[in-house]
């Protein structure tokens, strides 16, 4: 059987006409999502750690950042970065870069809350044991607290990454040629609406499901590292263990 590259335009009829454009858009969507995710994860870790700092001013800075970027819409942040910034500073950002920045800053703020919560969920007795063993504050975080908090972060991070993927469609507003942009262009130039919209639906879903699969894999690995075989059935396993 011959395999057909769905993006090549060799498919019959309307699929052949639209898929090359949708694929181009999908690639841009993936790029912006990946860039935004990388930035969001870095910000989440840094600001989440800052929000758990014993120093009040450091916590304060983190708090202000989190509240500000959670409390204003991505779209408005995008407008500021792309349209308002050049007026104020004279510097015009590349549109994909502005998009990645807005997504990263916004989802990073949500992610910081996830990181902070996960750090707090590690029992204080773990920190005390690490003090008793004379670890430095940095070593306590690096070798004891973070690895345990990491497992807790993954399911909510999965949600955030899917949110981020879908939020990339907002970039079409500043004319980034992503999947949503290409789709609308095709419809405007006369392609069958139902088919184009259906294809867009499928492509977004496939991407977000791929994210879920990757995150589940990471979660299982991480859970095994802290000695929990099956994270979703933690209680049941413990009960079975106890009954033996």
């Amino acid at each position, binding site marked *: 059987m011959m395999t057909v590259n769905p993006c090549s335009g060799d498919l019959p009829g309307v699929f052949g006409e639209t898929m090359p454009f949708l694929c181009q858009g999908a690639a841009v969507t993936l790029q912006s999502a990946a860039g935004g995710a990388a930035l969001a994860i870095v910000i989440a870790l840094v600001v989440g750690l800052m929000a758990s700092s014993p120093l009040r001013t450091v916590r304060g800075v983190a708090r202000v950042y989190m509240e500000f970027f959670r409390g204003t819409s991505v779209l408005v942040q995008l407008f500021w970065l792309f349209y308002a910034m050049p007026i104020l500073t004279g510097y015009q950002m590349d549109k994909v870069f502005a998009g990645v920045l807005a997504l990263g800053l916004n989802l990073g703020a949500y992610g910081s809350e996830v990181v902070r919560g996960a750090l707090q969920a590690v029992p204080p*007795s773990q920190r005390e*044991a690490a*003090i008793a*063993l*004379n*670890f430095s504050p940095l070593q306590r975080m690096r*070798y004891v607290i973070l*690895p345990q908090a990491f497992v807790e972060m993954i399911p909510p991070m999965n949600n955030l990454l899917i949110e981020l993927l879908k939020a990339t469609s907002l970039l079409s507003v500043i004319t980034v040629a992503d999947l949503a942009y290409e789709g609308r262009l095709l419809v405007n130039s006369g392609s069958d609406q139902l088919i184009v919209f259906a294809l867009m639906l499928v492509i977004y879903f496939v991407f977000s499901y791929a994210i879920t699969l990757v995150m589940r894999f990471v979660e299982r690995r991480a859970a095994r590292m802290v000695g929990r075989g099956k994270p979703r059935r933690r209680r049941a396993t413990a009960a079975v263990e106890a009954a033996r």
Partner: protein
Amino acid sequence: MIQFDKVVKRFGDVTVLRELDFHVKPAERVTLIGPSGSGKTTILRLLMTLERVTSGTIEVDGQCLSHMKRGDRMVPADEKHLRQVRKKIGMVFQQFNLFPNMNVLRNITEAPVRALGVPREQAEEKARDLLEMVELSDKALAHPSQLSGGQQQRVAIARALAMEPEVLLLDEVTSALDPELVSGVQSLLRDIARSSNLTLLCVTHEMNFARDISHRVLMFDQGQIVEDGPPEQIFNEPEQQRTRDFLQAVLNA
């Protein structure tokens, strides 16, 4: 070795320790007994620098725990000073507190390697010796969650000893164990106590264990020492009514 001088500890409005004075000599083994809430565990937590005194001073081996000298003034201890004094002290907790993100061997070697800079091979060699001592050689690569409470506590003891402390604090180390596992941990601690010159400070509700492990027993009530003496005196002919009442209550339980 350990010197408490007019130590006061308050949590909000609650005064847990009231102007406490006591002294522990090097290699002395002291057990703290008394009703719950009398401040025994707080003493261990102060020594481990998990809490700070409200007022008064604690010295370990001549070094003040909460303050340090800067010029000729005493200022609150910084992290560097705290790590210096913690070197001498180890602690075993009621709930073991093993690190779930490491296997048994790693639990024992991680602190010597990271905090003391011992080469990993050397730390592992030592850890295997310690595991042999606590009779868990076959569990080196097991995960803490695969061990029974008694085994976990024995690993925790090995982990504390791997840091080669001069003072070992035992905070109700058998209270969280199933009854049949208690004696194993106790006899291990008895062996360790007799074969080393560790200074031992032990909080326990097991009076028999207190009797055969300690040189001295301190009876606490309401943040103060009510009676202080060798185990024979405290358990056989206590002078204070409070001690008699307490012993009666625990021994008849």
